[in-house]
């Protein structure tokens, strides 16, 4: 890992510790020998209160490429995650995570995770990434909501 990348990721970690929103978590993965892999993080985004996404924390993996922050990190939910803007592989379709759209090197982890939280309850119907959720969101909102609530139970917070 280049020292530039290492410094930036350490800074991300420091800033996250200093200021992260309630209910979110994010930390670098640990290798088998206990050392940290700063390029690969696990994180959790809570569903917003008073929405169909509430009472759950959705797990994410964040992979920072070697040319981060010129290029955005790859942010994924679990494969098969039910959301109109999440690909079957779990990759999230969000403009701030797209190099050709709104990604800027200044965007930090907190902004990314808040962006994902926002996306959960306000899907963008113009950027479908999977068919089932997109179809239900557009045509059968009751079904969509039921499935989201069901999914929320799967990722329910402890207790």
């Amino acid at each position, binding site marked *: 890992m280049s020292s530039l990348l290492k410094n930036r990721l350490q800074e991300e970690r420091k800033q996250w510790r200093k200021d992260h929103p309630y209910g979110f978590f994010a930390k670098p993965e640990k290798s*088998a020998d206990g050392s940290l892999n700063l390029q690969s993080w696990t994180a959790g985004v809570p569903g917003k209160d008073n929405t169909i996404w509430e009472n759950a924390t959705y797990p994410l993996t964040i992979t920072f490429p070697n040319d981060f922050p010129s290029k955005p990190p790859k942010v994924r939910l679990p494969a098969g995650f039910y959301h109109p803007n999440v690909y079957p592989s779990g990759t999230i379709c969000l403009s701030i995570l797209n190099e050709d759209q709104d990604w800027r090197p200044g965007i930090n982890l907190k902004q990314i995770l808040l962006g994902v939280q926002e996306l959960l309850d306000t899907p963008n119907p113009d950027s479908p990434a999977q068919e089932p959720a997109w*179809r239900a969101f557009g045509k059968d909102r009751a*079904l969509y909501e039921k499935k989201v609530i069901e999914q929320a139970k*799967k990722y*329910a917070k402890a*207790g």
Partner: protein
Amino acid sequence: MEFPQDPTIDQLISLIEMMYTQHDTNEIKSIQSYLQTIQKSAKGYEVADALLLNEDVPLNSQFFGALTLTINIKLSLVNGEGLFEELARCIHSLLYRNIRYKMNNIFVVKKMFQNYSLAYRTFEPPAEWLNPLALFIAVLRSLDSQQLELDSSSPQNEAIPWLVQNQAINEIVLTFLSTYVEDFLKDNTNSEILIHKRVQNDIFPLWKHMMTTNLSNNVNTKASLKTLTTWFQYVSFVQVKTTLRYDLNDIWPVLIEVLQCTTDPEITTLCVELITEVFEDNPLMVNYQHRCQFDALFSSNWLLDKIAEYLNNQDFDSLNNLTSLIIAFLEIDSLQLASKLFTAEQSSKLQFLVNLTNFPSVPIMEEQISKQMLEFWSQLLDIFTDDLESLKQLSKQEWPEVETNSRRAFLSISQIYFNKIKLTPELLLHSDYHDNKREFESFRVDVGDLFDLLYTQLGLDLYKGLASTVGSFTTTVEEKEASYFLLASLSSNFSHANDELVHIIMDLFEQRFLDRITAQVNSLDSSKRDIYARYSIKFLGELGFFFKECESNNYLRQVIDYLFHGLKTYKMLNLTISKTIMEICDSCRLQLVDNINGFEPMLVEMITNNTVDPFTREKLVHSVCCVVQSLPSASNQEIYTTNIIGMIETTSTPLLMKAGSNGTLTDDELTYALSLLTCIHEVAKGLEIPDYLEEDNEEMFNQLRSFWMNYSGSIHTRINHLIQSFVLQADHLSRNSLLTERAIAIYKTGLVEDFGPFAMKYQDVISFATDLSTKCDLSKTLPHLLELCIALFNCGLKSKKVQYQEPISNEQITWVIRVFVQSHFDLIKEDPDLIQLTVTLFSALTNGKPSYLLYESKALQLIVEMALELLGYQEKFVIKSVAKFWNGFLAPRKVTEEQQIAWNKLIEVDIGPLLTFQVLRGMFETTRSNVDQYSSIVSLLIAKHPLKAQIWITDSLNKLHNEMLGEGKKGIENRDILSKKLAITRGSQRKCQELLKDTWKEVNGLDWIG
């Protein structure tokens, strides 16, 4: 509301005043819109002047005048000529009134200072006023008189003492100095070095002089500190954006002096916040010598006195600010700090920091210091993991001392935070607990993260300590709860366990640690039980790594018993418990085989009790079936499966009978029915044969295969019948899309299986789908039926599956296409989703059994016509699917040589020309991002049919060219060259893409795009 065409100033003033006092938002909007037109009009500048220069104009209108100038400068509605003098005149007039008449117009003055700065950033000033300070000083010098007299010849240096000494002028200059640079920070676009150089050369010397003089002489201290803050931000900004460098070292001794000597709490706060910001954002502004001065200050009694003072006054905000300052200072060079802090020389500093962390009183509710110190310790621990080598090098011969002392200190820190996160009665009964509960939980999670880092230094000693707390007879329930919380957090990182760790956990089970928490929690008031049991369950869910290493049934038995007990006792935790049971059953299925009978009572309860949460019920069924799947005897698996299916059957029968006899189910009954159907799906998923079985346990795999291949029992019929009774026997259930989707999902799960209770005959699947299609609400269920057909083709046409059952016959394929596509073609045509699914179905067919199309001309015609038409669609996902279809169609697999010849003939005689034309037409009409999809088809046409493709391309291009001309469009130039160029690509996808993209740009008039 009507507005005058050519308003007088008085009319404008009354409108402006109305705008600021009006409450009706529509009125405000219409006045605003009218006034904005005036501001941007040729009169705007004149209006601004009139409003600003006239002392009788109300303040709101004066401010409006200043705003009008901002708009005129920003939109360049004025030019630089005369602007600077005009701004000076207005500022002079405002300041004159401010000083002479004590008019409270400073907000207008500030706006004008902003305009002044904006003008210097936007226009080139006249030669005599190149220095922004010169013109401003000229204004100030003229404040004795009502008339502004600008004299650019008098030297500015002489004016400086006067600016500093005159109290009123001093304050105005401070405001000017702040305002002048403030907007640089907002206006990110303007980083022209010349502008910043002017600031450095012309304004900075005055600023520095004023700061040192004011702060040393206690003149306008608060305003000076505020100006200082703005300038620090500006300097950081400039140093990042440009090559300019500032030396601020004269400021620090003065600032330290102020901080140390002031008795004014407001000044202390300003100083503390200001210095914290510098240390956090740009510590390099402070050189080593001054850092030592700060260090000396923070190591002196001053700091202890301050802390004592804040404590006595219960001024927690100031205490937090002070802690932030210390942390920011210490973190400037964490590596250096880590190498020194744990030496004997700095033991008092270390003790001070440990004591600060252990600040008395309830965390979050009463003190935030321990929360702030989390960040500090985490940062320090990072050094020990991420930069260990550098730390050792830096510590040199002191490393052994650093290592020993740091370990001792980290142990103390772990103890402190362990106590801080306990759910003590004092905390739970605290008057602020309800409001700050979330923040406290967040604090706990952060402590969990700190323990992850502490573990890297303290290793299993840390884990062992926590484990001994949960295993002990003497520890309190709060201590146990905190330990479980931390053990769960630590365990979530483990993927395997070494011997020592295995023994620590084994000891816990040997001590029957779960009995302890059960007893202690049961003795609590029922409202508190869930709170204290929560993390014991979470901890058990994280023990997968342990059970992989330790195959003791007894331990798992304890876990399952505890969780089942919890399911009955801790109602709020049901979801967590059922998820935990599922995780354990999934990962420890082999070890749980001997306990299978123990699951039965709970399973019966879950299935038959309609008040159980559906999710809990479904997950428990899944869990049990994971264990059933691991039973070593296939016939036992069948028996258990039959029992579970029988249990669902018996439970659902009264409901389904009620529904079948025209009785509508209530919402609760419907939810219960859906959950029972979902349970069948969970049975199917739980029984799925794991991918690893064939490789890892061939004997078991063969036994299972042999059992099910020779199976003559009725389980398949029973399951089929049961599913159908949910969705085919009552009209309103058939039209419930949630039920139908779930029923379809069960068949889809079964299709993937080669054998087993859910591996249905293809004909059974087709019959079910056919029957359902006649009864369901097609607008909602057809997509799922098409998905089922896709899965059917993907599995039923696979040669690998032949050993288990006959592949789908041509008649069955024709049936599927007729029933699910042809019969509903009108519905499909209207819906892009259904179109996409249909094309995917066709792709599955073309990939699985292309020869079918050679012998079924009707189906071929239907499919090809539809796929050709879809090339003109605009939806990206449809285009993607149809391109995938044609790619498969042009390069069919699994065909004999004879069939390949027939296939080529089919394309070259019938389909090729039309396909080429439709592809190119679709491509020219689509958006740029879709061109690649089309070019992939063209490249394959060229690769597979090189001779014919060139002719098809030429003909198609000519035809399209004529069509375009007929529509008054530009047409396609150099068509022959293009088709030749395409031909010589020999079907290279990349080259074809480039050529077609360029042509697309030309045709669409976008060839100027790079």
